[in-house]
């Protein structure tokens, strides 16, 4: 299964080290292939360095693609993290 959606970065500093850490750690509990697209650049969301290199600041719109058996659960968890501003 492959799902796709766009989500906005709400926290003040954008996708900086802490959110990136939280995302990558959460993804370690999942199996799907996850990629983030921002400013025409698509990266592997499991790569903390790649996520940081996106340099997505506050209010950026990130396109998330999730593909795999647990795609729906993975997407749900990601959306929750973005919504809760990564616990900040």
């Amino acid at each position, binding site marked *: 299964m492959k799902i796709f959606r766009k989500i906005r970065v709400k926290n003040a*500093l*954008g996708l*900086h*080290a*802490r959110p*990136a*850490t939280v995302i*990558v*750690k959460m993804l370690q509990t999942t199996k799907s292939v996850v990629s983030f697209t921002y400013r025409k650049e698509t990266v*592997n969301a*499991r*790569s*903390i*360095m*790649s996520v*940081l*290199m996106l*340099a997505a*600041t506050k209010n950026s719109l990130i396109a998330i693609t999730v593909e795999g058996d647990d795609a729906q659960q993975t997407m749900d968890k990601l959306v929750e993290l973005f919504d809760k501003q990564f616990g900040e």
Partner: protein
Amino acid sequence: MGLQEIRIQGSPVSEGIAIGIPFFLDVKERKIPIFPITIGEVDEEIARYRRALFSSREDLQRIQQDLASVGSSEAVMIIDAHLLMLEDPLMTTDMEEKIREMMQNTEAVFHSVLAEYAKRFSENRDQYFRQRLLDVMDLAKRILGHLSPIPSHLPFSELPMHSIVFAKELVPSDTASAHGSRVSAFVTQGGGGNSHAALIARAKGIPFVASVDIFQLQQNRPNYVIVDGKTGEVIFNPVPETLEKYRHRKTCLKTSQQLLQKEVHYDAETMDGCQVQVFANVGHLSDLDNLEQLGAEGVGLLRTEYLFFQNRALFSSEQEQYNAYLEMIKKVAPLPIVIRVFDIGGDKQLDLSELTLKEANPVLGCRGIRFLLRHKEIFKTQLRAILRAAAHGNVRILLPLISDVGELTEARKLITEVEEGLHAQGLQFFPHLPIGCMIEVPSAVLICDALAQHCDFLSIGTNDLVQYTLGIDRNNPVMSDCCYPAHPSVIRMIKMVVTEAKRYGLHVTICGEIASNPLFIALLLGLGVDEFSCSPRYIPLVKRAIRQTSLLSAYELASRALSLHSSAEISQLLIEAYNKNATAIDETMA
């Protein structure tokens, strides 16, 4: 007007005079070596990179625990990010692919990959994200740090000729990787004269001076340095007169070496006709090149762990090991070669993080035979390779750090198993090789009568024996003066071992540094030692010292030494005896 001449007194570690240009290691940013690798080396290179990642992970986890215990959660989080970077596909699978693709050493590949990330990070408009580059760089430095202790990747091979290397500390792999024509001398801030790094420097004949304040020196930015490994003097920016004086000394030293060369083929026979055997301690194939020229009667100690050091393949396959041993055995044959199985651990820390736990006290930990009996697959692979290669020469096997008969019998059992396996496979090998024990801990000395009944020969490793007997860390610069083999306890132990070995008809070889020190030769002969094994370059010197000794006077010297109470008294006695003998010989020559 030139710079001012500065003289600093350090402690002498390895003899010789070097004149060269300084190169500061560690203190300054290390230069990244770049060289191509072959297809065959790719897997090793990747494995080495993985080990560096693994060690970096261990570092970070330890740091994180420390931070957590002081409640610094923000810092814990930063370390979390670093830990995730270590697992990042960019750092793992991508790096590995790049190594395959670029066919260069890991450092070079890593550096180019980092340069790319640095560029991408710095292109960010947002200052906050630009700063994340610092995290990546910090981590990169850590990984590179774990890559660099491995010999061939130190910049030694890239140094200008006649460099004098200044470092805070040197590990054995550092000195092991030094190339004679490039590295003229070592100067360190710490480190005692008995460390394995020092031992290797001496074996290679590279001058080495320790306990020198390097930081202060670096400030002075010296342009020329003289190192006198005999006196421990380090002279910066020497004035022309000093330079001339040392150039002259260097030439004299060379001349006297050449004189010694002329008599190497005379037998090692005492003045009263007792034949003594002098063997070589070796660690590399190249050590065998001039063995015959030096007059060695075989190899008394092949340190196999160094054989694979430089190939970055410590746990090489059976076939690789077989090839390496075979080449050496054939080169030495028909003379005997004593192969000591891997002596891992202690201050010879290799990159074994996957196999060994971090030990608080590695010298008292899992090293030598203890390591091998706990990693039987490594041990068996080595034994198979040795046994097979032994079919082509005169081979004996030596077991390091034996402290109990049980270890010896277990090792013998494994050897029998390996023999049976080889036999079942129909492979050619040499059965029932002589098996010997290293005597290097006091417990082995005290039970040497028991050990003698279960093995075929004994070999006394005095360096470790001194360290374990006196309870002094031989790498501790503060105590390095006290870690001296002329201690009554050490002399008595050697006597004990020789006596027991003779009772059971076994040969005893002395293979520590003491065997290459002319001061000790007469004493050792007097204690009953009739086999010496030392660094190849000392063989002519040792043979000369033997020829200048009479067994009768040696016995007297030994019995006087055994009656003395302190190391100071024994040292004094040895120096007096040596000088007296030297004068007597000069007179007869004149």
